[in-house]
């Protein structure tokens, strides 16, 4: 499994975030999870405007403040200091989750521990007996947001595949993921299973397949790319 640990091939964290940002349409209302998903905000393509929702009660979240402008009561869902963009608004938690549950948020980008080929997501618990269970807003987001993107390393640190036939960890939601951005590929969840839409530079379909816990389908875009 050590092949997966090679560092210099595939996309880096920034590139994964950048690639994801390309798929978020102008004018979208977007919720970004903690970690690599947060970085997506830095790569909104020129000419697009995206409004960020943070579930603790802010629409129109801006980037981190300068150190001397931190307000401990202006934070995001990851409890980090943020700023507000023009047009921002504050609201309470029930209103904030009404936006989520009521399908008003267009896109949510989340991290993952496992994604199944049916689009099941596991990202909140290892299910270990002595773990402190903690779920936050993850289940609300996957149940309510129209489009769910996942950004994740293709394999765990120990080289285990995260894209699997069925999740062994407790689910966050069933059949909720639309697209996955890994360090190796962009993969769609389709009725037929995982379909590779795009490969990172220098990465072959077989290379990705070897590191995936279930069968991958080549997307039409791959054939097209091969023909060029």
């Amino acid at each position: 499994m050590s092949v997966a640990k090679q560092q210099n091939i595939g996309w880096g964290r920034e590139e994964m975030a950048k690639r994801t940002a390309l798929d978020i349409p102008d004018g979208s209302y977007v919720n970004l999870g903690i970690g690599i998903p947060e970085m997506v905000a830095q790569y909104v393509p020129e000419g697009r405007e995206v409004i960020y929702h943070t579930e603790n009660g802010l629409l129109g979240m801006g980037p981190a403040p300068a150190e001397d402008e931190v307000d401990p009561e202006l934070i995001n869902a990851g409890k980090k200091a943020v700023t507000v963009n023009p047009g921002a608004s504050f609201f309470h938690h029930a209103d904030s989750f009404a936006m989520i549950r009521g399908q008003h948020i267009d896109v949510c980008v989340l991290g993952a521990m496992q994604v199944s080929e049916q689009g099941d997501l596991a990202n909140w618990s290892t299910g270990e007996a002595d773990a402190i269970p903690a779920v936050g807003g993850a289940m609300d987001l996957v149940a309510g947001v129209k489009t769910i993107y996942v950004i994740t390393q293709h394999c765990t640190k120990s080289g285990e595949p995260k894209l699997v036939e069925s999740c062994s960890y407790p689910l966050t939601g069933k059949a909720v993921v639309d697209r996955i951005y890994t360090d190796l590929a962009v993969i769609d969840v389709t009725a037929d299973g995982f379909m590779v839409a795009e490969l990172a530079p220098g990465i072959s379909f077989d290379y990705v397949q070897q590191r995936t816990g279930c069968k991958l389908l080549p997307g039409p875009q791959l054939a097209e790319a091969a023909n060029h």
Partner: protein
Amino acid sequence: MIDKHIDSLSDAVADIFDGATVMIGGFGEAGSPIELIHALIDQGAKNLTVVNNNTGSGHVGLAALIENGRVGKMICSYPRTVGSKVFPELYRSGKIELELVPQGTLAERIRAGGAGIPAFYTATSVNTPLAEGKELRNFDGRDYVMEYGLRADFALIKSECADNHGNLTYNKTARNFAPIMAMAAKTTIVQTGSLCEVGSIDPEVIVTPGIFVNRVVEIPHPAQESKLIAEGRSYP
């Protein structure tokens, strides 16, 4: 870039289709988006299901929409306001359907629709004719009826001040149903007294965040329903 401002009333309501469910803000004339309603009359969509607390007064606004034969069904709590003559006549002659909903249940159904809640329980209407045919359930020794969330294809609402992101504030009791209707409709169309620059409304005082709003038309001096009625006006 995000700019929800639309110049003309007719463009704002152009895609309202026959048979659509349309929530219309207002409690009596307070908050009634009268210019949007008149634009909808001009537009011509028919067989609409309209959600409003009342059924309009005189022969303008919502009453005119009904009088022009565009409404197949009203979902409301109080279709018997003083000055409301159009609806009662059509209702008695069987030409319009009525779903009568207690006012608070109506508000909560709209809020639930907007918040992704398909159904909830309330004690309102238990043991009354309005609970007939509804599922009863006992929680902690008290009976409740199950009520369904209510969504709409369009909402027409009136705001005091709006920016190009669709952030809204309201004037006094004109707020009434507008914020929850904005949540519950697929497409929310706003007439606002004043369109202002994005960022000029304090984020702490925005009542309806722009995420719930699709289109904003500026109508700086909206007609006042009671004045039109006093003048004996009718629409069109």
